[in-house]
């Protein structure tokens, strides 16, 4: 039913929903700015950055881009291929560690 109406006359949601999400995005952006402002370091910094990033990306995709109300086959067609990016990241992390090791052992000071 919801999907039939989504096709017929487009997405209909109260404006309030968008305003609430907007406020959340503002708050989350402020939080990620304060991570830098207060100079958090190490694991705390990285996990907070990733947490706020994922929450913001999720809100934008789910509500602003209406993915939460899209047909599941479209959602999967978009989200599943993105997992290939994560595999690529893993490969390049290994590769850059190896490059760094080679640079340190062959071009580092004192060699």
């Amino acid at each position, binding site marked *: 039913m919801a999907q039939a109406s989504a096709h017929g006359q487009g997405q*209909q949601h109260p404006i309030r929903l968008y305003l609430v999400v907007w406020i959340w*995005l503002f708050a989350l952006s402020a939080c990620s700015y304060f991570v830098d402002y207060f100079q958090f370091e190490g694991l705390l910094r990285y996990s907070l*950055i990733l947490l706020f990033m994922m929450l913001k990306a999720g809100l*934008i995709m789910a509500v602003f881009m209406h993915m939460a109300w899209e*047909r*599941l086959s479209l959602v999967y067609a978009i989200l599943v291929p993105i997992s290939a990016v994560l595999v690529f990241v893993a490969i390049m992390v290994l590769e850059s560690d190896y*490059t760094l090791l080679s640079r340190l052992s062959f071009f580092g000071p004192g060699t």
Partner: protein
Amino acid sequence: MAEQAATDTSHAYPEASGLRSIAADFSSDRQAFRNVSWGKAMMWIFLLSDTFVFSCFLISYMTARMSTTVPWPNASEVFALTIGGVTLPLILIAIMTFVLISSSGTMAMAVNYAYRRDRRKTAILMLVTALLGAAFVGMQAFEWSKLIHEGVRPWSNAWGAAQFGSSFFMITGFHGTHVSFGVLFLLIVTRKVWRGDYDQERRGFFTSRRGNYESVEIMGLYWHFVDLVWVFIFAFFYLW
């Protein structure tokens, strides 16, 4: 015949949900994305391909940063601004983030009013979105010229690893280009909304298809994507 097959599948999977609905859609031997117009599906697929482009940029930045033996410049200091005697780290980037998020908010509301066929409010909100987008590009131009004055080049900079400059210009330049084209695209759709093309179903100059308020939502998808990419750039390039 086609009619027959269509009714058969709908009988075979009357209320399929979850993974079963996906299997049913993809094996239906017809349009896979049921109830999704081709324009919206194609915009999503374009955005997916664009995701890979930006992913490649961010991954190459990660590789450069992880493998260099030279210290990486501290973005917090590089992008600090002194306003009224107070030095604030990353302040311009924070303002740019808020501007882009606000433009996303106005765009989402424009899409909503478009489906209510409120021509005036849709056009005004889209115009605000375009102005915020233009403001974002303006601030980015300011940031670029500031860094260029400070001697940042794609091949060198004063604070550390040379790849900082190349990553910065490549990633923010590509993103800024997306924003600029988005502003152009927004202005074109705003004009159509204002003129009532979507109410009169006037045919488009390029596709010759009947105008439909769904164009506003498709435009919105692109605009939110630009905002989405900025979320990742902000986290990985400026904050990390």
